[in-house]
């Protein structure tokens, strides 16, 4: 009995796996994870960017929830001054089966070197989505530093639109997704609810033409997003804009029996 027990233990814990066995085990675990193969991200060797940092924060919240230590409390990487601007996502996060962050692919500006109104456009590739899952929420997150120039004591009205149709020589068709009113001196992450757009993009990826952001003062004057303190793709890596999408599985994943 004790020999059998020791043998079992040694085979479970101490046996060195052959290369083939290791590959088979890797393939088996990848299949449980629903991955066709081992992902190969490009190693950038720079400072971690904003999306992985945000996701790591979510991971810690979800992991502690799995351990039943924390019930619903989720910490957002949002300074307290702006936290009231963020919709409560506690339930969305705790019920999510998958959370994906997307890196901003394209950024276009119509800034102070162009005619008013000023705007900023962002685009995200949402084609690599988990199968059999539906979007429960999607947020566009952008970091705001203190504003420069004459608008520092004013309130900024920041609007995010979905680009429905772009035209060559005239204005694109836009659909308003979310608006936030922020004091120009505030600093921190802003989160805009873009769930409606991401659902449309999921149904038809060719309609994903991106997001456009405008900033106005109380009187309707256009403000350059850069001067308002919004950090773009060329800003510090931990403060670059990104998209985060929450998914819920339609049904438990079914694995093919072998």
């Amino acid at each position: 009995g004790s020999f059998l027990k020791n043998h079992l233990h040694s085979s479970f814990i101490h046996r060195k796996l052959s290369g083939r066995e290791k590959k088979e085990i890797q393939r088996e675990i990848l299949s449980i994870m629903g991955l066709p193969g081992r992902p190969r991200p490009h190693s950038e060797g720079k400072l971690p960017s904003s999306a992985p940092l945000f996701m790591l924060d979510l991971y810690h919240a979800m992991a502690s929830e799995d351990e039943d230590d924390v019930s619903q409390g989720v910490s957002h990487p949002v300074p307290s001054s702006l936290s009231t601007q963020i919709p409560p996502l506690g339930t969305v996060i705790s019920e999510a089966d998958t959370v994906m962050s997307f890196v901003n692919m394209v950024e276009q500006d119509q800034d102070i070197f162009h005619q008013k109104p000023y705007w900023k456009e962002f685009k995200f590739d949402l084609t690599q989505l988990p199968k059999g899952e539906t979007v429960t929420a999607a947020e566009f997150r952008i970091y705001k530093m203190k504003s420069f120039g004459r608008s520092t004591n004013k309130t900024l009205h920041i609007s995010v639109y979905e680009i429905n149709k772009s035209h060559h020589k005239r204005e694109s068709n836009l659909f308003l997704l979310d608006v936030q009113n922020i004091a120009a001196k505030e600093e921190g992450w802003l989160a805009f609810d873009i769930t409606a757009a991401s659902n449309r993009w999921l149904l038809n990826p060719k309609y994903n033409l991106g997001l456009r952001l405008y900033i106005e003062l109380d009187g309707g004057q256009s403000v350059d997003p850069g001067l308002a303190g919004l950090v773009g793709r060329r800003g510090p890596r931990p403060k670059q804009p990104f998209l985060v999408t929450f998914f819920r599985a339609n049904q438990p994943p079914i694995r093919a029996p072998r």
Partner: protein
Amino acid sequence: SVRRAMKKKERKTNDLPQSNIVSGKYDHYHESEGREMCKRHELYVSFRDLEWLDWVIAPQGYAAYYCHGECSFPLDSCMNATNHAILQSLVHLMKPEAAPKACCAPTKLSAISVLYYDNSNNVILKKYRNMVVKSCGCH
């Protein structure tokens, strides 16, 4: 000598009618007494050992555990034995060819969350259900 003493004691406490016990099979139970009862054992799955830390951000591994041990009649030392497992163990005692012993298996499992990069450097946080054995029992 200890084993003999325990045998006596157990025989006394197991008030099964003699007609239900197939000769010799009950002795088999006592032979396996030295074996371990069904319980949870340590098992750590290491993403580091799998050389996956270039795409798995967190965790570096997780305690998965496994269930192992005997499910022999009587199952009173195994707190999580189902009624069916008790009956199956009885049937196994009487007709071992008709039904195998009850299995030592997880009774409660919990999820883990894994944070990883995909090929496009997007970050995915996924919850995988039924990955960690919380408790074991006889089924």
